[in-house]
């Protein structure tokens, strides 16, 4: 079989080479497929993956979990104390409260989220919403601010901190620039077409640039037709209701983005959740749906739609696309793939997660993505069969009511997409895609060697580093800024309450020197704050065969 020959022929990424009989013994690539095994039968999933799938979510150490709860316990007690003092006017109340006349109605600020906001988020608020004053490329300038009343108000000192290494922007291919071919083309179009169209696509907002963009996007993805929208969030929330309605079933991943959840809820279909990236859970739900049908009437479902994302940005995990497609074909359902973070960032040609796994784009029914991350623009697209896109042009809320994309933004997307595809005559795009892949592997490997707990897939440019304790969230953000590195730290409610993390987004614009500087500082801060929780010390990479002791086994 061609893929077993490829497995044994050359060393894989990460220095591993095939085992004795040409099959890799980690993750899901187990055993040799029998010659008569069907490719979409998932009992033997050894034949579905053409490359190793290394995903790891190391378990929280018990001591760390206990100490995190201790920290949250202390903060909760002090939160109650402060709330008590605010209520009895011992302390000045600086947060939002209801007016005197509204006190007899349903309380607005008594739930846990508002309690968390007042008492925990306010203490570490200076790590978020930092004002920048240059283009957020690989390096960014930031305005310095101080707070004299413990983060309730900020004042600017007037100083600008220059050349902070930016590890927080979704700038995967480095197109966030204010110089270069993209900028020149966009400036020319700005002077030709103006800044906005002031109309919807269906009325007068359909400019020839939009047609050009849609043809280009369809060619880039390898689908028949595509449609572009002005806002990535709205692409999901306004188009899912156009595709499914009452009497349909939506199977959505546990950790899907808010736009997908909102679109699913707005559609009125029944929603069932399967465990994150867990194909057994998905198959069980599909089987139950087909066997039992709709809840009371037992009629068959009109449509079953599976909602998954290419890369999940909080976990850094990549969807198990070959298995999802096999399941979709077996149970005759539809697949909606949200490639917001993976388009441009994965795959040897930058065409996303379908390219990464070497699958055919025709297997995915609805390919959705955004232009915000890898293309340095704004907006979203949906690609698929011509009938689907023609239907969406007339029935989608965004097409009928939302303003169409602004022409300079469209030109930025066209130029950057042509650059990635190599159609502008240079190899800049290909070099960027390869640089991103190298940066990803290098950065993840070095962080794992240092002993941090890193979640997610080996090839994903989103790198979550676990912090766990609430004080370390604020401390990490501040210490890294002192050392001129800008990071994004994430806590509740974007993550489960004890699993707070720092999320690094790698870019093709980061040079190796920048990554080395960043890694040195992360090492220092990790020692200072005691963040090296990992109990699996990885041996530094040598040319040794890939065996089961090298990486964490993926959890089933």
């Amino acid at each position, binding site marked *: 079989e061609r893929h077993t020959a490829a497995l044994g022929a050359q060393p894989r990424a990460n220095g591993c080479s095939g085992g004795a009989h040409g099959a890799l013994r980690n993750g899901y690539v187990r055993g040799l497929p029998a010659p008569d095994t069907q490719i979409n039968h998932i009992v033997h999933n050894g034949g579905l993956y053409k490359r190793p799938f290394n995903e790891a979510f190391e378990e929280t150490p018990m001591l760390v979990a206990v*100490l995190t709860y*201790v*920290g*949250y316990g*202390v*903060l909760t007690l*002090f939160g109650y104390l402060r709330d008590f003092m605010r209520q009895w006017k011992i302390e000045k109340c600086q947060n939002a409260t209801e007016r005197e006349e509204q006190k007899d109605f349903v309380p607005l600020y008594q739930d846990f989220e508002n309690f968390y906001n007042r008492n925990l988020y306010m*203490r*570490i608020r200076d790590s978020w919403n930092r004002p920048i004053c240059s283009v957020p490329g690989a390096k960014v300038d930031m305005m310095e601010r101080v707070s004299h009343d*413990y983060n309730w108000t900020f004042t600017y000192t007037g100083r600008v901190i220059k050349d902070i290494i930016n590890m927080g922007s979704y700038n995967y291919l480095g197109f966030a620039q204010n110089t270069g071919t993209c900028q020149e083309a966009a400036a020319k179009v700005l002077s030709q077409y103006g800044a906005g169209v002031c109309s919807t696509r269906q009325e007068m907002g359909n400019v020839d640039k939009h047609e050009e963009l849609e043809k280009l996007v369809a060619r880039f993805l390898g689908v028949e037709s595509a449609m572009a929208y002005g806002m990535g969030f709205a692409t999901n929330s306004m188009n899912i209701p156009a595709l499914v309605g009452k009497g349909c079933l939506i199977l959505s991943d546990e950790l899907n983005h808010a736009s997908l959840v909102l679109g699913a809820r707005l559609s009125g279909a029944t929603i069932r959740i399967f465990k994150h990236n867990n194909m057994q859970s998905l198959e069980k739900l599909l089987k139950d749906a087909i066997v039992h049908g709709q809840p009371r009437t037992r009629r068959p479902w009109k449509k079953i739609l599976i909602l998954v994302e290419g890369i999940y940005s909080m976990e850094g995990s990549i969807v198990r696309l070959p298995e999802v497609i096999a399941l979709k074909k077996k149970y005759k359902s539809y697949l909606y793939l949200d490639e917001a973070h993976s388009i441009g960032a994965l795959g040897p040609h930058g065409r996303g997660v379908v390219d990464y796994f070497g699958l055919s784009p025709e297997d995915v029914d609805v390919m959705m993505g955004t232009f915000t991350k890898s293309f340095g623009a704004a907006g979203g697209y949906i690609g698929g069969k011509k009938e689907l896109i023609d239907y969406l042009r007339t029935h989608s809320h965004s097409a009928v009511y939302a303003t169409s994309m602004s022409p300079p933004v469209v030109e930025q997307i066209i130029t950057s997409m042509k650059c990635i595809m190599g159609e502008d005559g240079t190899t800049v795009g290909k070099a960027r895609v390869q640089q991103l892949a190298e940066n990803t592997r290098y950065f993840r490997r070095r962080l794992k060697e240092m002993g941090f707990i890193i979640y997610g897939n080996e090839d994903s440019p989103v790198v979550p580093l676990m912090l766990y*304790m*609430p*004080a*370390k969230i*604020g*401390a990490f953000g501040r210490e890294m800024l002192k050392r001129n590195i800008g990071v994004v730290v994430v806590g509740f409610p974007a993550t489960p309450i004890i699993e707070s993390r720092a999320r690094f987004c790698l870019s093709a614009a980061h040079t190796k020197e920048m990554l080395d500087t960043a890694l040195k500082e992360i090492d220092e801060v990790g020692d*200072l*704050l*005691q963040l090296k929780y990992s109990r699996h010390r990885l041996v530094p990479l040598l040319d040794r065969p890939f065996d089961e002791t090298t990486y964490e086994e993926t959890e089933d």
Partner: protein
Amino acid sequence: MDIKSMKNYLYWLYCQFELITCSYLMEPWEKLLFYTFNISMLVMVLYTACIFVPVHLSMAFQFFLHLFGNQHENTVSIVK
């Protein structure tokens, strides 16, 4: 310098304590309250340990000694 590295190490330990109990995030008066409470609890526990535990231990020891002492007397009387 041994003293200097010892002091640095103790300072680092104090920082870890601050991070784990989240007193790193507290305002100064909250820190004062927290440390006063903690230190007073610790002092009370140590006081209990130092004053009461030796007395109780010696009482328990005497009780067991008395138990074995009684048995010894009984056997002695029978033999006699």
